[in-house]
């Protein structure tokens, strides 16, 4: 047994990349900033020194081009990891991802492969504004042929990144910037975590709750407080958005008869919609309450913190929604909300914790 090691998800991502590159010379790391001193928020630190410019390839500003270059190289056997400091930059590369990466294996009748990993970082807070803060997993989730992974813990960040790199299909690996700060016990060495679907974080019989990425952390907090109030959530961290393994969630809802989804991205036409639909197709007649979704509202992210305050669902909102679906009385919901609000508001709303001082 190893000593438990407490590292952040950001460090875990760096470690996974390092291990994968050491183990397999076909792994290359490509992106704008991968070899610079900031090293993608530290997640690629020292890798260019260690593996050299042939394997850690600093790129000109050319998101569409370099995505195609990565795919072409992958078809010939490389395993490129490409990184975007913001999800939005990757919008320039949608054609390559949707038409080439997602389809080359299919259209070649299995002959070709595009084993690329696309690391996308979701910006949040510190007034990033509407074009630097989106969580657009739903766009990728819609496309057969892509895999979409969103870790919320340090251990998953490492293990699932390793699994993504080893995967022969293209994987969109979405890292919430605030998840980078999360600490957790991470086993050392080449230990992959399979891309096999939702992970139950807490067992309960009252309500099934499905969250992803950073909002899993807010939901954990909510579920803790709910448990104290006697409302036992069956809480799943979704982790793999595509291909979607909904079976454990359906099984859970069959027991609870209640469902709440919590999305890091826009709610409308978002991830929760698919989960609700899949569940309803299978156990609509067993529901004890209407399902409920949380997610970002119907407008872009405003920069000013006064406007952004109500933008993101936080643990108090999540707890209240879960308690409502569980049928808790109004007074209990109000008290939950105030306990959690007091707790959450000790940190400014636009940063994950006090060490975070902008501008990124």
């Amino acid at each position, binding site marked *: 047994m190893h000593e438990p090691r407490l590292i952040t998800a950001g460090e875990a991502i760096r470690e996974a990349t390092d291990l994968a590159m050491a183990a397999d010379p076909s792994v290359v790391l490509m992106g704008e900033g991968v070899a610079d001193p900031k090293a993608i928020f530290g997640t690629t630190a020292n890798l260019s020194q260690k593996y050299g410019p042939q394997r850690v390839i600093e790129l000109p500003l*050319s998101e569409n*081009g*370099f995505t195609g270059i990565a795919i*072409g190289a992958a*078809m*010939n056997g490389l395993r490129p990891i490409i990184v975007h400091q913001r999800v939005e930059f990757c919008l320039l590369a949608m054609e390559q991802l949707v038409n*080439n990466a997602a389809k080359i294996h299919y*259209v070649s009748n299995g*002959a070709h492969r595009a084993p690329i990993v696309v690391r996308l970082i979701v910006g949040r807070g510190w007034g990033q504004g509407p074009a630097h803060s989106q969580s657009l997993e739903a766009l990728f989730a819609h496309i057969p042929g892509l895999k979409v992974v969103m870790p919320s813990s340090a251990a998953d960040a490492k293990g699932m990144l390793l699994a993504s790199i080893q995967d022969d299909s293209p994987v969109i690996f979405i890292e919430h910037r605030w998840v980078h700060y999360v600490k957790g016990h991470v086993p050392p060495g080449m230990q992959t975590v399979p891309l096999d679907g939702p992970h139950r974080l807490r067992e309960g019989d009252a309500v099934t709750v499905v969250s992803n990425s950073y909002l899993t952390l807010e939901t954990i907090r909510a579920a803790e407080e709910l448990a104290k109030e006697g409302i036992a959530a069956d809480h799943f961290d979704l982790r793999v958005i595509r*291909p979607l393994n909904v079976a454990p969630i359906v099984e859970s809802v069959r027991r609870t008869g209640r469902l709440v989804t919590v999305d890091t991205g826009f709610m409308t036409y978002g991830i929760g919609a698919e989960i609700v639909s899949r569940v309803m197709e299978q156990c609509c007649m067993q529901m004890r309450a209407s399902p409920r979704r949380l997610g970002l509202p119907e407008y872009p992210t405003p920069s000013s913190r006064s406007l952004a305050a109500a933008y993101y669902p936080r643990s108090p909102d999540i707890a209240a929604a879960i308690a409502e679906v569980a049928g808790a009385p109004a007074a209990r919901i109000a008290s939950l909300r105030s306990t959690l609000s007091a707790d959450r508001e000790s940190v400014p709303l636009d940063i994950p914790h006090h060490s975070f001082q902008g501008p990124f």
Partner: protein
Amino acid sequence: MNITAIAPKPPETPVIAASAGPLALYRAMLRIRLIEEEIANRYSAQEMRCPVHLSIGQEATAVGACAALRTDDQIVSSHRSHGTYLAKGGDLNAMMAEIYGRETGCCGGRGGSMHLFDDRVGVLASVPIVGSFIALGTGAALSFRHANQDRVCIVFLGDGAIEEGIFHESANFAALKKLPVIFFIENNGYSCYTNLEDRQPVRPLADVARAHGMPSVQIDGNDVMAVYAATSPAVARARAGLGPTLIVADTYRWREHCGPNYDNDIGYRTPQEFESWRARCPVETMGANLMAQGTLTKTAQAELATEIGAEIDAAFQFAIGSAFPDPATARDHVYA
């Protein structure tokens, strides 16, 4: 379902070896011409149920350029990919079966005419989104560099495709890293029905290379020897690690942009323009030259045509005689 079961058999015609000389180039062009014409002839039977972009009139670019390559070099191209696929040695049976949507097609019927590839001879991919393949070919060159191989990739692109930003992004990267890739523009003067002058400012087309500090050359794309002569040093340069070259080869598409017919009647080009290019037919010109030199005789020419005709008949028979893919396999290979 089993991939190896449907893998096309080795091609009868290998990559045209430069050493095989001008006659081999002529034969390769004639073969492409006759194949494309047969597709045009049979298209109205509505059994080839996918878009086809014929390269009749443009045979010299594909053949001259591929003649400068080794079998283990690669090419990528776009919607108009029959000529380059065949010139690089792509399996004719697999191509015809693909166009007919059969399980023996190079994609098992999944791609149609715009997704031809043949891994055994370095036809890496063709994809129908204009410009998209330019980055794929540049990535192939990156993989050669990574593996310390002296292989080269030719990206065949149209005069339309260079307008796409991805061309410049790829060219910048290739020039920066001195990748073994050649950007070979088959300049037929049109993007669908729109003339070059209506899409780009007036300047020598080869000047696009200057943005990226890349050498370039503009040549007669209907002269297969000129194409070969221009491509060979570019290939040598790329192989030596000296980086990419841009080649602009002027040529002309005879038939409609997509489909089997002539379309000079619809008004986007003049009959005079068409006739002037037809008079410069790459296949006929080369044939006449070879005859003038005494390398080719009328009889030999007729024999070639017969021989190729037999191959083509066999390929169509192969395609038509092949089974359609089993609908139950439609869900296979979404993930690797």
